[in-house]
């Protein structure tokens, strides 16, 4: 049967093959001149970029190191000895940040996904759950993280209930519920971006609502929102440091202790540098995923 179809396409294919094939030839002098001109332009712009970058760099260094207070600032923010002494404690604190980040990232994604799914449920029975999910995203996108953190880490232990988790766990929960509210909206946007015809196709095959969500809608939705999702995780990465306000000795808290001992701010700079280092791979992955998504989108459009 398909062979019949292929035979149909036959004539067009052969006519395409018979199209006269042009031999490659040397570019004309005119085209050679254009190519040479473009090459010269490229070299020129590279040189200009290098020179202007260098000039700006020199200007900045002169401005900062030439400032009247530079020597004192250098001493109290960029002291190599203090940095070396502080590094082990800060690294130990950083390990706590990394573990907390992993736990909070997974937790916030699960909470976000569950909330987004609850918000898309239509049957009347689920009205209370839907209302709860909606008000959750409203409240915790509005509430400042620091206040949520204080309420949980100082307020909850104040209740003196038995079995209260540690301050660290409570702080983690504060991060999870705050970021979960943001991620819920990201997931919901993704779910709503999947065209209704995809659901119709899945339902028409006999898939249930749940199977349609799990097998058809969510895989497409998550792929589409991966860039904003990862971007929120980069933000979470540094907000994990706020846990230091509640007491646990993370990288920032360790730096604070060192600073208090030496009256030198270098440990903060060290901790800041480590946070940036931790973020770079995550940011790189985000950019890569974003680029890939953009490419796929343009491929879809041109198809």
């Amino acid at each position, binding site marked *: 049967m398909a062979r019949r179809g292929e035979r149909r396409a036959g004539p067009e294919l052969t006519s395409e093959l018979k199209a006269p094939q042009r031999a490659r030839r040397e570019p004309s002098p005119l085209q050679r001149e254009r190519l040479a001109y473009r090459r010269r332009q490229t070299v020129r712009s590279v040189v200009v970029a290098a020179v202007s970058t260098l000039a700006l760099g020199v200007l900045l260094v002169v401005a900062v190191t030439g400032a009247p207070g530079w020597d004192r600032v250098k001493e109290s923010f960029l002291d190599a000895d203090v940095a070396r002494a502080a590094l082990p404690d800060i690294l130990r604190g950083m390990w706590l940040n990394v573990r907390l980040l992993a736990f909070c990232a997974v937790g916030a994604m699960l909470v976000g996904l569950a909330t987004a799914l609850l918000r898309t449920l239509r049957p009347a029975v689920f009205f209370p759950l839907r209302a709860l999910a909606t008000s959750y995203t409203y409240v915790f996108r509005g509430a400042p993280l620091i206040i949520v953190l204080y309420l949980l880490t100082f307020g909850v232990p104040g209740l003196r209930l038995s079995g209260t988790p540690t301050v660290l766990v409570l702080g983690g929960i504060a991060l999870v519920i705050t970021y979960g509210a943001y991620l819920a909206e990201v997931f919901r946007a993704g779910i709503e971006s999947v065209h209704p015809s995809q659901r119709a196709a899945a339902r028409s095959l006999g898939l249930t609502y749940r199977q349609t969500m799990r*097998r058809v809608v969510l895989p497409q939705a998550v792929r589409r929102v991966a860039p904003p999702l990862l971007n929120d995780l980069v933000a979470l990465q540094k907000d994990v440091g706020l846990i230091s306000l509640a007491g646990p000795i993370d990288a920032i808290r360790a730096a604070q202790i060192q600073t208090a001992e030496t009256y030198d701010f270098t440990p903060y700079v060290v901790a800041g540098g480590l946070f940036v280092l931790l973020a770079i791979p995550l940011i790189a992955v985000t950019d890569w995923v974003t680029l890939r998504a953009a490419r796929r989108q343009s491929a879809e459009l041109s198809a």
Partner: protein
Amino acid sequence: MTPVLACEAVRKEFGSTVVLDDLTLEIAEHDVVVLIGASGSGKSTLLRCVNLLETVDDGVIRLDGRDITDPRVDADKVRERIGIVFQAYNLFPHLSVLDNVTLAPRRVHRRARRDAEEQARAMLARVGLADKAGEYPDRLSGGQQQRVAIVRALVNDPRLLLLDEITSALDPELVGEVLALVRDLKDQGVTMMIATHEMTFARRVADRICFLDRGRILESGPPAQIFDEPHEPRTRQFLQRLGGAG
């Protein structure tokens, strides 16, 4: 014998617009019924109502004699027994051709992966797409995608196959391969209800043509009668306009 599909005074309204106006229609087993009519005459809506993607506002639709418009009926179970192919293919872009075809057998009918894939590969081979099983839909031409969509709808072995303008989104040179496949299905005895604008195809594949006008079947009969000596002036007018345009 009980008809596979029976629509009795089916009514569908969108706001104040009446899209299906007490429409009545029966399709016997192995019959191919082709719906023709202007855009907005209700062809697609009828197909969507039969597949329970839309709920009817009045009337009854029966599949093998059983009322499927009863709200107590499990719509998922009904849809398992009706295949539908859409104008825009609606393949799942994140799944390979093979996974598109095996999704329903594996998840709805709980068949083993190997078993489902074996059947899917055999069916893909029959439509000339054996080498495309591992590809993703966006790597296929429109005609190939639409053939995959037909295989996907058939893999459940449905009682009734609905085809909704399946060639309207295709480039003209790709229409032939899809229509050839539909003619093959007819030869195999698949019961079909088809909405189309392709009159030559309608003539060649239909056992019966129904001309829809403003949500009603104005005229129905064998292709030769409808196309060569239509009784109704509106049918004649519609066919003439198409002839003029073609």
